[in-house]
């Protein structure tokens, strides 16, 4: 992305889907000097341009994932900024937002700067840091939000931990108004979720595992919505998984509360039954919930209550997952499976059309975090994803570019995947066997 600008790139004859302009049709897209130069039919080929024939492919503004854990600094055995940025590119993402629950946490401008510069060197997707809400993620007092935003943070969150102190949440939402950045929260009332390691219900009762009730998420979502309404701040609710929580967001949006919210592929496609047999690859937070909840997440995602698709990409070394269920850490990797999963199971089943999926994976997340991109209008950054909607493939964690393999989707047969990822006019990833 830095240094000399890439040569011209002409993407010829693809189905261009750009919901930011309400466009869906066969067209060429020309990228020049890192930006979108033109879109139109029969664009002339500039000297020295690489021409990619895009017949049968979908050309979209680059996909954006606003919720990933890149683990650096401190967790480099799980993932690095470089491996994470490359895994993102392999999943079709041109930009990701890195969560600050690292060791040390990203709670000062120096660490924000470190993530930014490592991301620029990585040569994959763009990496946008989020800063902590509170010093050390302790939930006590505000971190230097202004300094972090000046250093490049695009939002604040204590993700990994919910903000339990409602007074601190009020301060964060008020203070964020100075900078116009969202406050992202992991909604979970720790008093209600207590020692839970999976969803509360019959499966947890049978397995003898402590459960987290839906109410632990619902009350925290309601709290955040009310404090956002009080302050006028922008609350971004992460990985929403409960039906009543989604209803509350829908109602708050109708009242004009500034709220955006995430749906993850796993909370749409897996239920608590995936935990059966103490499968630690199905251990995550929020936990996989009931069938009624997955249906509500899909409905909320399709109707736009949940604005953005996010992976909550949470890499863990296999040793860490190879433990008794109680002892294993939460989370799954998601960057390299997200597009295929939602394309297969939502678009493929007629629940969502492709332009709406592109909106949820590109336009809406870029808008929610004020990122450049999410559009192919002239002059926009040359961030483009090429998707082969007919490609059949099987999830094989051994082929991930991520350093970690913790996926519950191993062996799933999917239709549709990214075949080329372009960041700033530069091809940063290309599916090799697919093009031949």
């Amino acid at each position, binding site marked *: 992305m830095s240094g000399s600008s890439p040569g011209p790139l002409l993407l010829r004859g693809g189905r261009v889907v750009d919901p930011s302009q309400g466009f869906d049709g066969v067209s060429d897209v020309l990228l020049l000097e890192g930006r979108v130069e033109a879109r139109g039919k029969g664009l002339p080929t500039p000297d020295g341009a690489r021409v990619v024939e895009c017949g049968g492919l979908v050309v979209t503004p680059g996909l954006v994932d606003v919720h990933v854990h890149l683990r650096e600094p401190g967790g480099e055995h799980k993932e690095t900024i470089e491996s994470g940025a490359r895994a993102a590119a392999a999943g079709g993402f041109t930009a990701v937002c890195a969560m600050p629950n690292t060791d040390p946490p990203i709670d000062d401008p120096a660490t924000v700067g470190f993530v930014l510069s490592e991301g620029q060197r990585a040569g994959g997707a763009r990496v946008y840091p989020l800063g902590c809400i509170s010093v050390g993620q302790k939930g006590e007092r505000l971190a230097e939000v202004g300094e972090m935003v000046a250093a490049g943070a695009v939002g604040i969150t204590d993700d990994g931990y919910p903000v339990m102190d409602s007074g601190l949440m009020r301060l964060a939402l008020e203070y964020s108004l100075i900078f116009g950045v969202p406050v992202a929260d992991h909604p979970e009332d720790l008093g209600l979720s207590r020692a839970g390691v999976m969803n509360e219900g*019959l499966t*947890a009762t*049978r397995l*003898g595992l402590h459960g987290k009730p839906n109410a632990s998420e619902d009350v925290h979502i309601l709290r955040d919505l009310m404090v956002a309404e009080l302050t006028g701040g922008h609350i971004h609710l992460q990985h929403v998984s409960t039906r009543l929580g989604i209803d509350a967001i829908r109602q708050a949006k109708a009242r004009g509360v500034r709220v955006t919210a995430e749906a993850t592929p796993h909370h749409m496609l897996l239920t608590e039954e995936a935990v059966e047999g103490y499968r630690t690859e199905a251990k995550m937070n929020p936990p996989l919930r009931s069938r009624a909840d997955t249906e509500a997440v899909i409905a909320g995602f399709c109707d736009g209550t949940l604005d953005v698709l996010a992976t909550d990409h949470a890499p863990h070394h296999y040793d860490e997952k190879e*433990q*008794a*269920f*109680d002892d294993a850490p939460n989370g799954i990797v998601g960057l390299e499976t997200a597009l295929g999963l939602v394309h297969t199971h939502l678009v493929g089943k007629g629940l969502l059309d492709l332009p709406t999926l592109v909106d949820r994976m590109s336009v809406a997340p870029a808008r929610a975090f004020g990122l450049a991109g999410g559009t192919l209008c002239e002059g926009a950054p040359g961030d483009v994803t090429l998707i082969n909607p007919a490609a059949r493939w099987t999830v094989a964690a051994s082929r991930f570019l991520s350093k970690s393999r913790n996926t519950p989707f191993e062996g799933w047969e999917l239709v549709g995947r990214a075949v080329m990822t372009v960041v700033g006019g530069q091809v940063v990833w290309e599916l090799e066997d697919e093009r031949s």
Partner: protein
Amino acid sequence: MTHTTAHFGKDLIGLESLSAEQILLILDTAEPFKEISERRIKKVPVLRGKTIVNLFFEPSTRTRISFEFAEKRLSADTVNITSTGSSVVKGETLVDTARNLEAMRIDMVVIRHGSSGAPRFLSERIPSNVVSAGDGSHEHPTQALLDLLTIRDRLAKIEGARVCIVGDILHSRVARSNIYGLTKLGAEVGVCGPPTLMPVDIEELGVTVFRHVEEAIEWADVLNVLRLQLERMQGGYVPSLREYNRIYGVSRARLERASKELLILHPGPMNRGVEIDSDVADGPDSVILDQVTNGIAVRMAVLYLLAGGAPEKAESAKGGVEE
């Protein structure tokens, strides 16, 4: 070399996955083994040459000793590993501990672990037979089997009996294994305890939930009274042991108000004066020490069957004539 038997697979992880026939097979196989413990020389050569590791990640006296007696009376060679004074406290993972034991060519592992699912985790990673001696809040299959045997001894049959489990159902592996075992054998099962210690959706396992112990006593033929762990008070589930005793304690006065006599079981160790009063524990309807005796026979039966022993040959195997 994977050890499997035709009777119930390689391992005994819980009763949820067993059929009524398999449970009855264990109980019937336990019958001839009862007599060994009554002999002057309490040893038969059934498991001679077998190596069994008792891997206890949680403190246990009764269950560990019961397994050890069962193993020794069947002539197995046994090693005890407890979480203190082993590599367990040096940070070695469960899977590494298991693989090291496997490398020493053992035949069976008896595991007690604080995390639900640990025995299953182990069983999927080593070819040796794995027997759960209790995992987290999941299952404690041999405890339930000995409870079933004790009830059957007294009532002649389990089918149709009304058995109520009283106490901290939420954290109890004994409760879960008993629910599976009893319902599979046709008993009616009740659970009774404070709502703070009652698992969500427990009635979907086919049990009746009682909020008041008086109702449970009136309904039941058998009470299985669970130990109230002191941690439950510290965790705020119940305000005090005194109050717990007042509301849920099984006392002579409460039993006398019932229209019939009840059989009293307790998996031990007892908190006298908390969940059970001494005059009940020591009374004529208490079979608490019979449970302890039966525990050895049931565990002998489980080890014998897992080692490939034929149930119909258990009687003759005691004399060493098998093989």
